C-alpha cells in the first residue's frame, strides 16, 4: 500500500533519524511512505488569532499538494500533523475561509484529503495484534515511558487522535512491541515547545522535570512522536564542560523502537547523533545482528 507522506522541515534536516526509521518500519509493514513530489513548510504553528488567515496559506498549500497525491496524507512530525489536521478541520468548518485562501493561492483545495499520523495507520489500519505478530525481536523487559506531549493530542475536537488527558496509543504500541509502558504523571505535560527559542531556561526546567519523573518511575527510555519534544527533552541532557551526570535516559522516536523490534538493521534505526545515545540500550534487544 502506498501512502502519500509529508516529512516537513525538521524531518528533512535535524530529525533525519525519525524520517529514516519511520519510512523503514512502514515499509517493513507493507506501507510505502511516498514523499509528496512538491511540498513546503507547514508554518510550524497553527494561527490562534481568528483574523490571521495569512498563516493558513502555507498549510493549505500542503493540503492542496496532498490532495493531488491521494485521499490521505501521513505525517510523522507531531507538529506538522497538528498544523495540517487543524487547518483541514478549520477549512472544513469555514468554507468561506477556504474559498478566500484558494482565491489567494490560485489553487483549488477541495477539502477532501484526510490528514493522518503514522500511529493512526498502525492502530486503525494494521492493528496492534497484527503488529505484535510481525515483531521478531520483542522488547521484553524494556521499561519505556510514553511521552505524548501536547500537540499530538490537543485540542481534542479538532485532532481527535486519542483521549487528550489519558491517552493510550503509545502505550498500546509499546505493548505490541513487547515492551513495558511506564506510567508517569508527566506523560501529557508540556516540554515548553517554542519557548526553547525565547526562554530556554523555562523549557529546560519543564524538560528536566519530565525526564526526572520518568526516571523515578523506572523508565529506561522516553518515547515520543515529536521532534521538538525529542529536542527539548534530550538537549538538557547533553554533555557539557561538566561532563554527564550519569542519570541521562535516551529520548527516542516510537519508530526507532519499532525498527529494533521488527529486526531492522541498525542503520534503519536512525539513532545516531542524538545527545543521549540510545544505541547501547537498544542493542541489548537487537540480538546478534542475524535478524
Amino acid at each position, binding site marked *: 500500500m502506498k501512502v502519500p507522506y509529508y516529512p516537513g522541515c525538521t524531518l528533512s534536516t535535524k530529525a533525519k533519524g525519525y524520517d529514516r526509521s519511520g519510512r523503514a518500519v512502514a515499509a517493513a509493514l507493507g506501507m510505502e511512505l511516498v514523499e509528496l513530489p512538491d511540498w513546503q513548510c507547514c508554518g510550524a*504553528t497553527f494561527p*490562534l488569532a481568528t483574523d490571521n488567515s495569512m498563516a493558513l496559506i502555507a498549510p493549505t498549500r500542503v493540503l492542496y499538494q496532498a490532495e493531488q497525491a491521494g485521499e490521505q496524507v501521513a505525517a510523522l512530525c507531531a507538529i506538522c500533523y497538528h498544523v495540517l489536521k487543524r487547518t483541514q478541520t478549520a477549512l472544513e468548518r469555514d468554507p468561506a475561509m477556504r474559498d478566500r485562501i484558494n482565491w489567494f493561492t490560485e489553487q483549488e483545495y477541495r477539502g477532501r484529503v484526510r490528514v493522518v499520523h503514522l500511529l493512526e495507520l498502525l492502530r486503525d489500519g494494521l492493528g496492534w495484534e497484527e503488529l505484535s505478530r510481525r515483531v521478531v525481536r520483542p522488547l521484553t523487559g524494556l521499561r519505556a515511558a510514553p511521552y505524548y506531549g501536547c500537540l499530538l493530542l*490537543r485540542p481534542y475536537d479538532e485532532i481527535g487522535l486519542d483521549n487528550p488527558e489519558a491517552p493510550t496509543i503509545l502505550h498500546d504500541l509499546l505493548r505490541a512491541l513487547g515492551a513495558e509502558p511506564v506510567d508517569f504523571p508527566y506523560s501529557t505535560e*508540556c516540554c*515548553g515547545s517554542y519557548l*526553547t527559542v525565547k*526562554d530556554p531556561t523555562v523549557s529546560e526546567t*519543564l524538560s528536566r522535570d519530565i525526564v526526572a519523573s520518568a526516571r523515578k518511575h523506572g523508565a529506561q527510555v522516553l518515547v515520543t512522536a515529536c521532534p521538538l519534544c525529542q529536542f527539548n527533552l534530550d538537549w538538557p541532557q547533553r554533555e557539557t564542560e561538566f561532563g554527564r551526570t550519569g542519570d541521562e535516559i535516551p529520548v527516542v522516536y516510537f519508530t526507532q523502537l519499532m525498527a529494533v523490534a521488527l529486526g531492522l538493521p541498525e542503520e534503519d534505526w536512525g539513532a545516531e547523533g542524538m545527545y543521549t545515545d540510545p544505541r547501547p540500550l537498544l542493542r541489548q534487544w537487537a540480538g546478534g545482528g542475524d535478524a
Partner: protein
Amino acid sequence: MRAVLSLSKLRSQFVRDVEEISGEDLLACNQCGKCSAGCPVAAAMDMLPSQVIRMAQLGMTEVLQSRTIWICASCLTCVTRCPKGVDLPRLMEALREISLRAGASEIDLNRLPPDLVRELPQLAIVGGFRKYIK
C-alpha cells in the same frame, strides 16, 4: 495593586479587540481557576492565567505588560479542562498579537545563544519566530 474600574473600560476598544482577534467571549470565564491549577508553566509566570483573563475582562490594558502572555506555550492543557469551554490560548494569542502589532518583539536575534541556534530543530525556529516576532 490599585485598579480603577469603569464602564467605559469594560466596553473599551481593547476588550473588543481581544474578543475579535481571539473569537472568544471574555465573560464566559467565571474565574474557577482550573486553567491556573493545571498550567505547566505557571511557576514561570508573574500572573496566573486566570488573572490574565480577569484583567482582560475588566479592560485593564496593564495586562499587556505581564510576562505571562509570553510564557504561555499554547500547550492547550487549559482548553482541555475549562468547564466553560473558554479557549484561553486564543486569548493569550490575542494579547500577544495586540502587543506585536503595536511593535513589540520578544526575541532579540542578536542575543540568541549560538550553540543553541546551531542545534535547534527548524520547526522551533520557524514556530518561535512566528509566535514572538512580527
